[in-house]
């Protein structure tokens, strides 16, 4: 396979990671909402933890974007 084509294919495959991270971010908020509706009184105090979880899940998706960008522009 041509090296350039392989690079672009790899960048495309890296986009799968971004899609999977979107499932993760959706899970974080869905579970939070589920818990918050069961016990609304405790929900506000847990908002910090919600965003820590969101940041963790999001970072991995952003990393796949970085890999794609590296493959296209730097490799």
């Amino acid at each position: 396979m041509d090296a350039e084509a392989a690079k672009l294919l790899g960048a495309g495959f890296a986009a799968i990671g971004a899609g999977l991270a979107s499932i993760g971010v959706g899970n974080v908020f869905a579970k939070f909402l589920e818990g918050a509706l069961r016990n609304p009184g405790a929900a506000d105090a847990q908002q910090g933890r919600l965003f820590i979880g969101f940041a963790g899940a999001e970072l991995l998706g952003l990393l796949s974007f970085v890999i794609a960008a590296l493959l296209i522009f730097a490799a």
Partner: protein
Amino acid sequence: MHQFTIEPLFGSGHWSIAGYNIAFTNSALWMAIATVALFIFVAGGSKRQLVPGRWQMAVETFTGFIDGMLAANVGPNGKKYVPYIFSLFMFILFANVLGLLPIGVFGVHAFTFTSHFSATGVLAVMSFAIVLIVGFAKHKLHFFSLFVPHGTPAMMVVPIFFVELVSFLVRPFSLGLRLFVAMMAGHVLLEVLSSFVIDSGNANIGLFAIAGVPSFILMVGICALELLVAGIQAYVFALLTCVYLNDAENLH
């Protein structure tokens, strides 16, 4: 990607430190604009009226928000970090929002300096340095107990130490990388969508109706999403700094 290029505005000829050119770039200009805007925002709300006006209320909401965040995450010891976290949060927030301003229609090009790793990386290293300095000053070498959580079985101490060490050392990278990639990805997305609108408009009217108009409607939605992301990323950066400071202040 013209919007991400850093161009020297003046001083490219002879301003240098240790052989490196320190020209005043468009990135530096927008950092200065963010600082001035932040200064005006805080100064306008610092009149200390007994019955606060709208402006004072806005500033007090932000300071109260940061104060509450530190109280919840660090505890009573966190009070002394309010100035740092407030500056950090507001600087990033102003930078992100200023970079989204649609002033391109007047021919001025907004530059989002948080879409460069060199800018966000320095902010992240600053937070990490404060964590290290506070941790070692307060707990001396006992700070290393951060890497071995309570109740670790004796067999697992060595592997857990290395896992925790790596997760600790990767913090400044993840902190800077998150902000930089989130801002850059959003701007690239807007640029790609706008190129759909312009290219389909140049091609023919049928293609414009099929591809251009939906892309434009999507762009309006993505712009709103980007405003949300600008706020969330500033919040996450400040929040994670609080969490890391908690490790330094209280170990765990």
